[in-house]
């Protein structure tokens, strides 16, 4: 029996992206701890979804997008690993001709929108609880965070989460349970009451 499914229109794709883009950015930011890299990852994920799967049925978008997003995050870490390897190799060949010791503070680059120099008033405006929770989520092991975010934040069921993560349903349950317990313990230690 052949099922008839309605393919997505451009409007539906747009609505879907509007719906998920903020959470996608946060997910990527929790994983890579760098807002610029997180924006790149989300942009790549949106492009891939639109280019390759943009005409698929709307119902398939959440799953497809999450798979693409998680793969993009993994790609980021792979590239980061390779870059770090080359940097280590090349730095081992370099040497200081004059033998002068450099002061690391002289070469320290500070990003313009770094959190270190945030406006104190803005810092005060930020909800303390949110900061603690986001910090705790960012510190979770990658697979636990992935399972927690997909299962509870993206509201996928266990089977969908397992498919998106490429693992068994049992693993999803284990990762989710551990993630929640770890988060609860971290928040309790910081004095946060939910």
């Amino acid at each position, binding site marked *: 029996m052949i099922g008839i499914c309605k393919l997505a229109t*451009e409007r539906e*794709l*747009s609505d879907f*992206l*509007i719906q998920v*883009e*903020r*959470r996608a*950015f*946060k997910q990527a930011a929790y994983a890579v701890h760098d*807002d*610029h*890299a997180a*924006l*790149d990852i*989300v*942009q790549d994920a*949106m*492009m891939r*979804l*639109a*280019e390759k799967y*943009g005409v698929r049925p709307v119902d398939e978008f959440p799953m497809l997008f999450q798979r693409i997003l998680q793969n993009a995050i993994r790609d980021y870490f792979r*590239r980061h690993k390779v870059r770090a390897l080359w940097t280590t190799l090349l730095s081992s060949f370099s040497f200081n001709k004059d033998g002068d010791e450099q002061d690391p503070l002289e070469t320290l680059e500070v990003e313009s*929108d770094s959190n270190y120099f945030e406006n104190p008033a803005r810092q005060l405006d*930020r*909800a303390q*609880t*949110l900061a603690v*929770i*986001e910090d705790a*989520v960012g510190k979770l092991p990658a697979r636990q965070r992935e399972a*927690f975010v997909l*299962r*509870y*934040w993206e509201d996928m069921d266990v089977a969908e989460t397992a498919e998106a993560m490429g693992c068994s349903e049992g693993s999803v349950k284990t990762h*989710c*349970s551990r993630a*929640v*317990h770890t*988060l*609860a313990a971290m928040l309790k230690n910081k004095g946060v009451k*939910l």
Partner: protein
Amino acid sequence: MNERDIAKKITQHLNYGTNQLDRSVLEDLRSARQRALAAHAHPQQVFGMAVAGHGDVHSGHHGHGHHSPRFWIPLVVLLLGLLIAYNWSEINGDDPDDVDATLLAGELPINAYLDSDFKSWLDQSSRR
């Protein structure tokens, strides 16, 4: 509280966090979305824009612009290929100047100037 309740409380805070994003981040996300939608509608044009350097929404280190390795690696390979092909033809080609030089230097064997078959052809035709 059970596991699900704790998770629900935490995700409520996370949802609140998504509403606190900086204006610049929201603007970048909007641009990224529009670019994705443009790619969905006109894939060729967006590729052209990216190559021309007008397509980058966010100047990341692995974007789709003209700084992308996807653009310049094939270009370098093509140029190297052309260079190698040119040099190869220079080395192995039958240059007429070289043949002329060999003739003038008298380095060809005497048989090269003789047509040995001509005499036998003459003999055969005279017998007829």
